[in-house]
């Protein structure tokens, strides 16, 4: 399976009469862009722009999506949501590199988060560095919460696809090729790596989709990393902002990027096993056993295991670890920690002695104070009900004191950011 990512770099983002990319400047026709959202059960939809360094806060943020579309090969990005469900990961895909669609709506109590485009909060989120087209919307009256989440998810994916599609004819600034040979016939002497991709599936608005299928209903399954690059995995979840994998994180999965970078150099990248994080023990047992079996069947020596969320899925994380290790597949886990504001509490809800190699993605409870911003997009008072915030978080001057878990992507457990916790 061979995929080209054709990257067109976005240096600037403005509104204008026609959507297109020219000389690094992405122009968006807001009226036309909003027309692609017709039929979606949202009201009062409007678009705003937030650029790196500007004094802007976006709150509460539901998802962030990188604009991509297929330009060659079968299927369309975000299969199951955009276009059909044809297998993706082959041909060529256009990436508007440096741009992002951010969805923002009063999704109170759903564990959303915020993005600051400058100041100390900006250090904690990757989306302070992207040129953001922000969709601000409200649900239609009486819209049930799950339908509301679905509408917002669909709106973000459609907008991202629309932007890329409108720029489909631009010449890319650089092209990257992603290709792995079939498993049969590989005769590499290098250690064989599999990536265990745990997806949030606790339900009650904690859902993730694979080809449009709710992953809490799947058995763990083997997929090609290129499928992820084409949006086969889409976020539909409202877990804590700090460690929810936005769709942007999935599209730019850093573990896949690193395993590809070192493939054929010092490791042999076998593929990706997608698994879930269901709430009941029987599902956890079934999925972890099945995951370890799949990894064993394809002959893995090493597994990188990433978690999404904290607390309940810590159990899935350590069950995966123990079962892989017992089959002789050595593991490295990536997780964050809930160590308390003072950092003195134990950070995981479950543990096994086999977990000897763990990368920390940071302490979600660490406190940060972010200053007031000149422009606030959305509903700043929602910090009171976001995980990490509380009723006294928003101060009269507009500054916010909160745990970093309210910041989108602050302790991402794919290892997207450079943060980590250490002993002091």
């Amino acid at each position, binding site marked *: 399976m061979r995929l080209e990512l054709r990257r067109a770099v976005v240096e600037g983002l403005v509104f204008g009469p026609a959507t297109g990319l020219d000389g690094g400047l992405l122009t968006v026709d807001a009226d036309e862009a909003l027309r692609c959202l017709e039929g979606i059960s949202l009201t009062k939809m409007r678009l705003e722009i937030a650029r790196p360094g500007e004094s802007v806060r976006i709150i509460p943020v539901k998802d962030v999506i990188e604009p991509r579309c297929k330009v060659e090969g079968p299927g369309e990005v975000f299969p199951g949501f955009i276009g059909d469900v044809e297998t993706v990961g082959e041909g060529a895909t256009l990436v508007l590199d440096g741009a992002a669609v951010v969805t923002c709506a009063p999704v109170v*109590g*759903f*564990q959303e988060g915020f993005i600051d485009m400058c100041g100390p909060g900006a250090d904690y989120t990757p989306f302070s560095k992207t040129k953001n087209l922000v969709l601000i919307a409200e649900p239609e009256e009486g819209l049930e*919460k*799950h339908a509301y989440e679905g509408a917002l998810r669909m709106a973000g994916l459609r907008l991202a696809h629309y932007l890329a599609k409108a720029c489909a004819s631009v010449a890319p600034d650089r092209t990257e090729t992603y290709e792995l040979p079939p498993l049969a016939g590989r005769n590499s002497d290098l*250690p064989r790596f599999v990536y265990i991709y745990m997806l949030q599936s606790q339900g*009650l608005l*904690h859902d993730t989709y694979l080809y449009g299928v709710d992953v809490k209903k799947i058995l763990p399954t083997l997929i090609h990393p290129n499928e992820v690059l084409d949006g086969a995995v889409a976020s539909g979840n*409202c877990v*804590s902002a700090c460690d929810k994998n936005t769709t942007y994180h999935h599209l730019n999965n*850093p*573990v896949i*990027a*690193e395993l590809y970078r070192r493939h054929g150099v*010092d*490791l042999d990248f076998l593929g990706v096993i997608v698994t879930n994080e269901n709430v009941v023990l029987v599902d956890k047992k079934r999925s972890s056993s099945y995951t370890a079996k799949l990894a064993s069947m394809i002959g893995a*020596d*090493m597994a*990188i295991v990433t978690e999404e969320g904290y*607390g309940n899925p810590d159990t899935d994380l350590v069950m995966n670890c123990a079962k892989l290790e017992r089959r002789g597949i*050595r593991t*490295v886990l*990536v997780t964050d*920690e*809930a160590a*308390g*504001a*003072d*950092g*003195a*509490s*134990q*950070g*995981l809800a479950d*543990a*096994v002695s086999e*977990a*000897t*190699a*763990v*990368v*920390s993605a*940071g302490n979600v*409870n660490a406190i940060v104070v972010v200053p007031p911003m000149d422009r606030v997009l959305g509903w700043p008072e929602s910090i*009171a*009900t*976001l*995980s990490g915030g*509380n009723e006294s978080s928003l101060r009269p001057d507009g500054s916010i004191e909160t*745990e970093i*878990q309210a910041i989108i992507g602050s302790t991402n*457990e794919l*290892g*997207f950011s*450079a*943060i*980590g*916790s*250490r002993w*002091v």
Partner: protein
Amino acid sequence: MTKRVVHYVNQFFAGQGGEESAHLEPVTVEGALGPGLQLQTLLGDEAQVVATVWCGDNHFAENLESTRREVLRRIASFEPDLVIAGPAFNAGRYGMACGEVCRSVTEELNIPALTGLYPENPGVEIYSRDIYIVPVADSARGMKVALQTMGALAAKLLNGELQGTAEEEGYLSRGRRKNFFFAENGAVRAVEMALAKFHGQPFKTEFEMPVFDRVPPAPALKDLKGATIALVNSGGVVPMGNPDRIEVSSASHFGRYSLESLEDLTAQAFESVHGGYDRTYVNDDPDRVVPLDALRALEKEGVFGRLYEYYFSTVGTGTPVKNCSRFGTEIAGQLKADGVDAVILTST
């Protein structure tokens, strides 16, 4: 301005003899003494060892509280910016004295204090969460290196420059996790660690697995007929309006609410404030998390004795285990005191 340092040592390092002088009471000497002379050289012009307080190890150990207060009083009179104690290497009584002096200075004078102990010195386990302890050798043969490390940490503490991890700064961890930004992202670090693990090369996990306090369930009740049963939940069900302001995540406290004369938790009078799940269904009918209706029915049928007149509630999501342990201890204490025989714990 030159910073002021007070140094604490025992009778031996004050040059007053060994075991035969271990009963001596605290003494104050102006300026540096014994190992303090070398510390002064290391600190240079930045700081001055203005006084040395010394005390016999046995006297300190046998009159702990009074000696602690007396030594603290002597130290405070010099208005220091920093206190250094020891190093005490693997000496048990001396190590405890250094730990006690440093903790008192830190907590009561609110200025930084550090000592040097061998990692297996019993003082480490007792004091390492509260004070800065530099790991040193097990005997005075390691004096030179110990003073160098302690001097370097002292200089940083005096300048308020402690930015790195415990390991980088040269002290034993105080048991707290702190966020840092590294050169490489987590994924790059993970693959690097995996390759080292595969090849049997040394690697360092970034997070050691916590050790859990596993509690075996209490034996089942033999007879429910006379039993008092209580309801406790972490699903955030509280009276409408959240009177105790329980946080939506990372709860700092729990609430206790009366069930007296209630047969059912109605959507008008109760709600969930939990920030970690979709509350549509529980807010429709709070009995889904606090099953009062079902228990009242069983109580009437005589299946069990009586329902305890209060229920306890907190929010589980993002709440540090340390807080949870405290909630559990306090709730269990109240239930025990009120003669509750069994508890139904519900989450979300």
